[in-house]
């Protein structure tokens, strides 16, 4: 089995690209972990759709205040400088282009930047939340995702097969095997697991990987 990054490690890698003072929205699930891995000396300000800017980490169990939760309905804490606002103001921040980065999960990403992450098809109960707003609002939209599905099928594709969340919105993918930019409608490989050849990676990718500069090793600490 190929060595691959854990979700925690992908979150760590994504965190390295967040600047000091950046305004960041982290999607429910894996992306939420990015907040834990801010490099020393950098402090991003986190936004949650339900109306908080600049919240802190999870409280100790038993000390939760259920009026102080994030978009995933998990309890968070206050920090000096936190601000509360209503949902229309919150999505003004999102849609108005005021967030520097949004990091989301993905079912599929296409080489033109299309993202599918909200619906696996017509069966079951559809749920979209704030994802469709986030992909068209933040200055930079990145995705954290396993490189392939549980069945080993590529998640990075020429075109998405699942219902879209947004068109041409993703610019960087942090996968379990590589860091890939989306530029001019193409996947551009930036970093890959050192143990993996470009050919092996290409075989697990559903669209052509372009190489425009030396590909760096994707090196992430044990976490």
């Amino acid at each position, binding site marked *: 089995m190929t060595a691959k990054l854990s979700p925690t490690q992908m979150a760590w890698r994504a965190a390295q690209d967040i600047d000091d003072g950046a305004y960041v929205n982290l999607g429910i699930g894996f992306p939420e972990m990015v907040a834990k891995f801010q490099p020393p000396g950098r402090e991003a300000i986190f936004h*949650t*759709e*339900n*109306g*908080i800017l600049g919240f802190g980490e999870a409280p100790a169990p038993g000390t*939760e*205040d*259920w*009026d*102080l*939760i994030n978009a995933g*309905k998990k309890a968070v804490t206050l920090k000096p400088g936190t601000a*509360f*606002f*209503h*949902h*229309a103001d*919150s*999505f003004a921040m*999102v*849609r108005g282009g005021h967030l520097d980065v949004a990091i989301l999960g993905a079912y599929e990403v296409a080489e033109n930047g*299309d993202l599918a992450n909200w*619906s696996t098809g017509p069966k079951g*109960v*559809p*749920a*979209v*939340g*704030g*994802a*469709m*707003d986030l992909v*068209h*609002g933040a200055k930079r939209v990145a995705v954290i995702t396993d490189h392939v599905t549980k069945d080993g099928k590529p998640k990075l594709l020429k075109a998405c097969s699942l*219902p*879209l*969340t*947004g*068109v041409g919105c993703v610019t960087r993918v942090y996968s379990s095997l590589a860091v890939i930019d989306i530029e001019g409608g193409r996947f551009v490989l930036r970093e890959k697991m050192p143990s993996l050849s470009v050919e092996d990676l290409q075989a697990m990718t559903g669209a052509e990987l372009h190489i425009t500069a030396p590909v760096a090793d994707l090196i992430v600490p044990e976490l």
Partner: protein
Amino acid sequence: MDKTLPDLATAVAGISDGMTVMIGGFGGSGAPIELIHALIDRFIATGHPCELTVVNNNAGNGHVGLAALIEAGMVKKLICSFPRSADPVVFTEAYLAGKITLELVPQGTLAERIRAGGAGIPAFYTPTSYGTDLAKGKPVEVFDGRPYVQERWLKADFAIVKAHLGDRLGNLTYRMAARNFNPLMCMAAATTIVQVSKIVEPGEIDPESVITPGIFVQGVVQVENPAQEEVLNRAKAVYPEVSA
């Protein structure tokens, strides 16, 4: 002018069959549990109101609040962004059985449609949902070279809302992230009824810190120490309580 109401039953007395009702809250935070339960009490006693269209971000959790309203069979249609929760069984079963209709709306579009309803803006354009299934059938227009979807305002006959402090003029504050959709829904309903933890005298709320000015509120009822949906669900509460 005195907008205070004596009790929860009076507060929900004006809601009739077939109305569109906005219910505040994001998950459990800011959800007016006691007002919802008062509405269920009325339905159990009188068979009304039913056939409601409910606007909420979610679709209820467990067997209290909005989930209990759905479980009681009072809701024919739900307009929401995220009908999932820790325990979404009530909505899920009703939906899959075809007993309830769902209009799924992206969360920011839902918020903006409600604000637009309150602000007299019948339609607006947003980049959100462009090129997706949720934009199907909606007009698209290009501004400055970028395509946008036209969305319509959302209004309601009633809003039931949870706030923190309120005065007899209807001025309100909220508590932390329990603010969420509540101030918007106050604006967008013909009649807005608010449960507050405490009714205070006019002037006790700093005029700089009023979040919802009283003009958007028609009734205020005090509910001290309101229930939190999350706490009820952890205790596996069911509404109405089933007698042994």
